[in-house]
């Protein structure tokens, strides 16, 4: 801190280690290094002694052993003969699935609630305030349990759908809400262009991406024409056609059919079964995080000064275009960073799956595998590694985004 114009040439004295700013930070760092090294040595020594006393060693070989437990909700092939490693992969995919779904719905809830909270309508804005306060101030674990209880204790069992006079019936004859899970129709291709179903789905995705690029091109051309002639050609119908026509033709070619769930015997078969735990976790995480996102959205919109709206109005923009061209681009810069950290929270909170028995990575690797093999250290370390990687990836995306929307200053 202090600058000396004429450094003293005096001999080195021991007290200078702590009193002289040139050496002090070095002294402190050496002390810190010694303390850290000693603590690591102490903890490591304890670990080695404890492991030796328990007759354990650190080894990840158990990941190849047969797991011996079943997982209901899974995205890839898995049975009780599969290895612990594969169980962990099933868990990772399940974590990503619920996190992805919850991020989408939480954003929808949050944006709606955040915008409605700023509504001129007194009743609506108060209602949204109540929603936000209630969900922000009650632990997410309680919400997960409450919604899981609704799923299991309030929804009827498949038995209620049976008989001549069923007490429950399917919604539109397509969806069945039971206490074992929700059954929804599954799209299938009667004569797909490729053998494996995955390839067909990739084709569908490719067509959609193609349409997206095509509409972007159309919009670009429209903007160009507008700049040259001052008139913007109408693109709405053309865009709609570009989206729909290839998609419909493809669906027709591949013979899209819906596999509707049906009551067979004591249970439903066919369709996609979405398990109760997944729905409870998904819905609870969305509605809980939605309350936080609503606050971020509100803060973002309020952060844009009223002068911006007024200036845009003075230029003659319509309210819709004021929102799209002036307010949102600026508000998004404020909203997106906290939004992404909410996505991070969703990913981390999805570990609460273990409370309702959804087989995410915490429940498979950190729950059943840990209890069966007793490999506490290895399992917990792998678990942390997974979440750490996911978090770092998400924050990397956030940093890239922040850099790209940063105000370009000279």
């Amino acid at each position, binding site marked *: 801190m202090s600058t000396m114009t004429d450094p003293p040439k005096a001999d080195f004295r021991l007290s200078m280690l702590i009193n002289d700013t040139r050496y002090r930070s070095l002294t402190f760092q050496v002390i*810190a290094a010694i303390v850290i090294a000693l603590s690591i040595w102490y903890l490591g020594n*304890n670990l080695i002694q404890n*492991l030796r006393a328990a007759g354990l060693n650190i080894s990840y070989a158990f990941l190849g052993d047969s797991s011996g437990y079943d997982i209901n909700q899974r995205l890839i092939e898995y049975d009780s003969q599969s290895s612990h490693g594969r169980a962990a992969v099933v868990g990772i995919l399940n974590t990503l699935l619920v996190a992805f779904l919850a991020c989408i719905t939480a954003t929808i809830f949050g944006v709606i609630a955040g915008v409605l909270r700023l509504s001129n309508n007194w*009743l*609506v804005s108060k209602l949204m305030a109540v929603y936000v306060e209630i969900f922000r*101030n009650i632990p997410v674990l309680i919400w997960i349990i409450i919604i899981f209880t609704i799923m299991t204790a309030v929804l009827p069992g498949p038995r209620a759908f049976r008989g001549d006079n069923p007490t429950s019936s399917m919604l539109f004859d397509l969806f069945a809400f039971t206490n074992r899970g929700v059954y929804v129709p599954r799209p299938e291709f009667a004569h797909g262009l490729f053998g494996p179903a995955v390839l067909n789905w990739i084709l569908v995705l490719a067509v959609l991406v193609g349409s997206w690029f095509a509409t972007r091109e159309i919009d670009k051309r429209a903007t160009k024409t507008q700049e040259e002639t001052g008139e913007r050609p109408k693109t709405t119908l053309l865009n709609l056609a570009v989206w729909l026509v290839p998609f419909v033709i493809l669906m027709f070619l591949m013979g899209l059919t819906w596999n509707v769930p049906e009551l067979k015997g004591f249970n439903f078969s066919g369709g996609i079964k979405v398990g109760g735990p997944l729905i409870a976790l998904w819905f609870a995480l969305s509605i809980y995080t939605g309350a936080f996102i609503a606050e971020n959205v509100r803060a973002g919109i309020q952060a844009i000064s009223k002068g911006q709206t007024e200036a845009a109005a003075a230029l003659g923009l319509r309210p819709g275009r004021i929102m799209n061209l002036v307010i949102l681009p600026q508000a998004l810069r404020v909203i997106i960073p906290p939004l992404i950290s909410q996505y991070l929270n969703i990913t981390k*909170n999805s570990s*609460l799956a*273990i409370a309702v028995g959804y087989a995410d990575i915490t429940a498979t690797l950190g729950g059943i595998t840990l209890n069966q093999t007793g490999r506490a250290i290895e399992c917990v370390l792998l*678990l942390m590694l997974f979440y750490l990687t996911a978090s770092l990836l998400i924050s990397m995306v956030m940093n890239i985004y922040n850099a790209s929307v940063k105000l370009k200053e000279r």
Partner: protein
Amino acid sequence: MADQTTNPIAFVADGTIPPSPPPASQTGIIKWMRENLFSGVTNTILTVLSLMLIYVLLRNTLPWILNGVWNADSLAQCREILDGKTGACFAVLTERWHQLIYGFKYPDDAYWRPNLAFVLMLVAAAPVLFFDLPRKMLLFTALYPFVAFWLIWGGAIMVPVVALLGCVAAGAVFQKFGRNSFATGFFGAIIVALVVWNVGGALIPEDANEGAMLSAVPSRDLGGFMLNLMLGVTCVSLSLPLGIALALGRQSDMPLIKWVCVIFIEFIRGVPLITLLFVASVMLAYFFPPDSTVDLFLRVVIMITMFSAAYIAEVIRGGLAALPRGQYEAADSLGLDYPQAMRLIILPQALKISIPGIVNVAVGLFKDTTLVSVISMFDLVGMIRGPILASTEWNGVYWELLGFAALLFFVVCYGISQYSQWLERRLATDHH
């Protein structure tokens, strides 16, 4: 006035007409409703939808709450009393009240101890939260942790006394040497405290808990909402100084210290609390000396404290970064050294900016204390899901119990956030 009689003009206004009241549609509640509820087609639709939603909610919950049964021994008896009507069975709350609040193993005759500790906590927290109160009350706040420990865990009074003596000795040493050199005072205080604790610990006889004034209660017997409160209060108070230290460390010029803090903070913030609780329950024991037994409560406190310290550190780092550079330079130009500058100039301002963030972390942490039910500790949620819902009498009383838990957390968390808003207004010393 006298002119009037001679004036040929029939009428001249000699004053302003008093303003007539606005039309009924432009005043009072009607105007307010027109402006705020029915100002347009969309708004009217929204209002009607909201009213319908409120009606549906009230119609389903009000009879249930109003018909509630408060006195019964089991769910079956509740249903008998209700006799087919819809109604809640709040009797579970009255019958299992002690279990919900204190857990199912805390000795029956000792409930007054946590109650007293709770009341004293309010007294101890008061001077910290409301600084208009006399500063002398802080003395009690400093004593409170030891009193509370003795009240809740009971056992030999010598344990908290020795702990207190260690702290007093450390404080005295810091007072004496810290004035000249912060580092000397700081490390001296740590060494003195360790010496006092070790010597004092050795002096306490093994069987000191026998015949103690308050019977000893082991940590595993704690439970219920009391456990949530204890974890929340302990971890927040411990993580505040740790978080400040981490935030300062992250800003430090010394690369080693900076990177240790960065890695610690980013690591803790990157993993969910549940994995840290797994560490506490299955892994941490491996890192303690082989023959030591550190009970689960302490292990959980260590992990949750580390967790919230990392978050608080980030909040305070934001506060430090928000301070203008001139403040640091002003402190330097006054000739203050680093501890003085931090204590007198930087931290008071940085902490003031960080208050909303710190309170958010505290509220989040308090909510997260429910996660300990996952590692089979019987906090409020653990009690509800475990012993109470599993019992034959109360199997199936979900909504009353979960609603009660939700209400308790709501009251506490909402209260804290209201306090934080009040504090922000109170501390706003700048002029707008």
